């Protein structure tokens, strides 16, 4: 998943790689490549063996003739395909958190809870290759599944997963004073704030994600009590647009057609319901409304309007992001 140094870069798919099988933007799947195995979906049956040696980004055909694209995994694609063991963070929140916390290669960051590892995977990309993500969840099974995912995506050197009740016990003392940033996605984040003070370095940054404003209020009180500065609260969302080319008729055409129809009805000629290209009212030759004549005299479909509209199903709220800086003494 993480980019490798130039000398080690590899562009072709190999045994054991994770690929994202892309059907449509809302139909993707992570698959570990094992020659001998097959993938079957609505586009046919695909032999993994046929994929090996092809470049990432290639189009492959199945036995039934359908095709899919095989993409290299990225944290963004991973967020789309991971198995939801919990609620997860999505790209709008994730990208904002990472930018606001000013994470960069070498940063040390702690997170709780790990949940499904959606955020963790992006955190790992931003601190690699020299930084670390310490992530904690009190749910052992979730922690284990997340760890397996991190190994599968090659993040094991960057991400450390532990089972721990962070609201009850705080972060481990071994992290004291070391961290550049702390991220909380917990039901009662205010309980973890006293511990966040200890593990953060001077002027280190904290972020807490909470769906409810009451959680935010309690967190802010705790932050003020623990001398955090620069407390700011944001809500981020992302609206997605789809684009289509459509032909919209100028109303004049309709009026002209109507007039022509009426005229021809008078003469008892072509029946009104029959869709034909009619001569324009002016008596000059004209084409169907959505065609144009090219300079060679060929009749071509006229380019329509490229129109963008928001996709109807959009998240209206995910949560509030509360940021603060540890006190500089």
């Amino acid at each position, binding site marked *: 998943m*993480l*980019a*490798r*140094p*130039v000398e080690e870069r590899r*562009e072709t798919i190999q045994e054991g790689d994770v690929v994202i099988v*892309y059907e449509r*933007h809302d139909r993707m799947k992570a698959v570990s490549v094992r020659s001998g195995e097959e993938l079957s979906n609505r586009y046919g049956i695909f032999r993994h063996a046929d994929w090996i040696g*092809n*470049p*990432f*980004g*290639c*189009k492959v055909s199945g036995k039934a003739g359908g095709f899919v*694209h095989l*993409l290299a995994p*990225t944290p*963004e694609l991973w967020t789309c395909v991971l198995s939801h063991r919990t609620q997860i963070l999505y790209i*709008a929140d994730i*990208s*904002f958190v*990472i*930018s*606001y916390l*000013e994470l*960069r*290669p*070498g940063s040390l960051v702690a997170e709780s809870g790990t949940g499904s590892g959606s955020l963790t995977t992006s955190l790992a*990309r*931003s601190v690699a*290759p*020299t930084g670390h993500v310490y992530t904690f969840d009190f749910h052992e099974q979730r922690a284990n599944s997340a760890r397996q995912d991190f190994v599968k995506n090659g993040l094991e050197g960057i991400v450390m997963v532990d089972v721990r009740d962070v609201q009850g016990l705080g972060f481990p003392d071994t992290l004291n004073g070391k961290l*550049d940033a702390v991220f909380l996605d917990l039901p009662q984040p205010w309980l973890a704030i006293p511990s966040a003070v200890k593990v953060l*370095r*001077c*002027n280190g940054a904290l972020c807490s994600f909470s769906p409810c*404003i009451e959680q935010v*209020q309690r967190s802010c009180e705790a932050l*003020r009590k623990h*001398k955090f*500065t*620069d*407390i*700011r*609260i*944001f*809500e981020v*969302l*992302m*609206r997605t*647009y789809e*684009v289509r080319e459509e032909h919209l008729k100028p109303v004049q055409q309709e009026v002209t057609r109507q007039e022509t129809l009426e005229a021809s009805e008078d003469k008892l000629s072509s029946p009104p319901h029959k869709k034909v290209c009619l001569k324009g009212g002016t008596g000059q030759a004209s084409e169907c409304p959505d065609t144009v004549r090219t300079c060679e005299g060929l009749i071509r479909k006229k380019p329509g309007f*490229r129109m*963008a509209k*928001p996709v109807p199903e959009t998240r209206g709220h995910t949560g*509030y992001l*509360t940021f603060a800086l540890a*006190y*500089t*003494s």
Partner: protein
Amino acid sequence: MEEESELQQVARLGSNVLVDFNNGDRLTFARLLPSASLKVGNSMCSLAPLINAPYGSAFELQRGSLVQIPPPLPADLAEAQAALNPPADSMLCDEPRGRDNRSLVDDNTAQKLSAQDIDRMRTDCASGKDIVDALIANSSTFHNKTAYSQEKYKKKKQKKYAPFLVIRRPSTRRICEAYAVKCPPKIGFMRMDTVALMLSLGNVGAHAEVLVMDMVSGLLTAAVVERMGGFGSICSVHCAAKPPPLDIVGLLNLTPSMANRVFRVSISELTSALARDDACGLLKESPHTGSAQATTDTGVCLDDDNNKNGSENGTEGLNKNAKPSADDDLNIHKEAEQAMCIDTKQTSGGDIEVATQGEELPVAKEDGRVEQNVSAKKRNSNAARYGRKPDSEDLSHWVKHGFTGLLMGAPEYEPWSVTQILLPLLSPSSPFAIYHQYLQPLADCMHELQVSRMAVALEIVEPWLREYQVLPSRTHPHMQMNATGGYILTGIKIAPN
């Protein structure tokens, strides 16, 4: 790494710092040189006391010089903030009963302290807070004011008698926020959440090889450099003969190893390298529409004059100073002089070593007023160097293996015209993120990409950001909101058949 994380946490001699006055009243970039000075309140103060202070440190003016103080706590600031930003129609939820402004008379007799008294306190070295407290104690009307007016009074007096400042590391995030308030056209009206999204969508991280087209004063380039931390390379591509300015990169405190990873190259150098490579048959792909242009030698479709539409959006002039020049390298370092949308003037009494670098970015306050206290200085000739020319090995490497991501912020150009030239330079399965302030040009570009089957996972996204004030009984969204952060067209390039 040691050196790098150190630079992140402490303002060193020669570092650029972002100076935040009175909790957001005014933001200024300054370069910490021994002779540097800055206007605080009414006096010019030496910035020397800031050198070696950790970021986040606070200072106030005492007897004409800056003295470190404990950073003011949000518990106090928040109160002031809330009172100054009351819910609509000033209905403060917990105003003590019966207290309002009905009996307030302004006859200039309310303050019992005279100007001489205050001056005496100052020469006696009273702290700003002491003076403000004394003013309040000696005001006969203060206690009858509403909480709102009390805070307004306090804040006004504090600004006058006890201005404080906090130093911040100039990160791309903070720089973007400052520009977005003061001179949004310089950064193509991008918002910090827009930049954040683009970094994610472009899969930017260590060891990436990112192609960036930056006509937003270096904002995108800076964001990428920062995120990559010296691993991988950033190829900043330009189309006019003279590369556009990347001033913002110069505001970061880049270590040499980070600055070293930034390359600048013209679009024609890249496309002719691609054409050479193509001729050797190593890469067989050319988008059906783009190839003719892609093989010509100069600025291609990207002629300045053809693209001067949409000037009312304020992006005009971004590239106007572009004059053909034979020597790219020299220009890169001179360009910093141009393109600041803020008046700059020389500091008085500054020697050649120049007081502070960069420009002043006054920032609008909650109530929308803007502090226009401009006092920026000439740039230091030692400004961080950024953008070296790639050698032929770099070029042929990029052409052979392709970039791992593309970020574009070029508000003046037709997105599709650029995309069809740059996309062939990406390796298959690499993502791209193209910014535009307007939706329509991206819709056109997306349609062309759909039809030409060059990419999958195509989407146009519009980031949305809202800030909140959260205080007991006074939680509400901020009154001011930047309504648009523009649009991003994103997708993943696929391998040509």
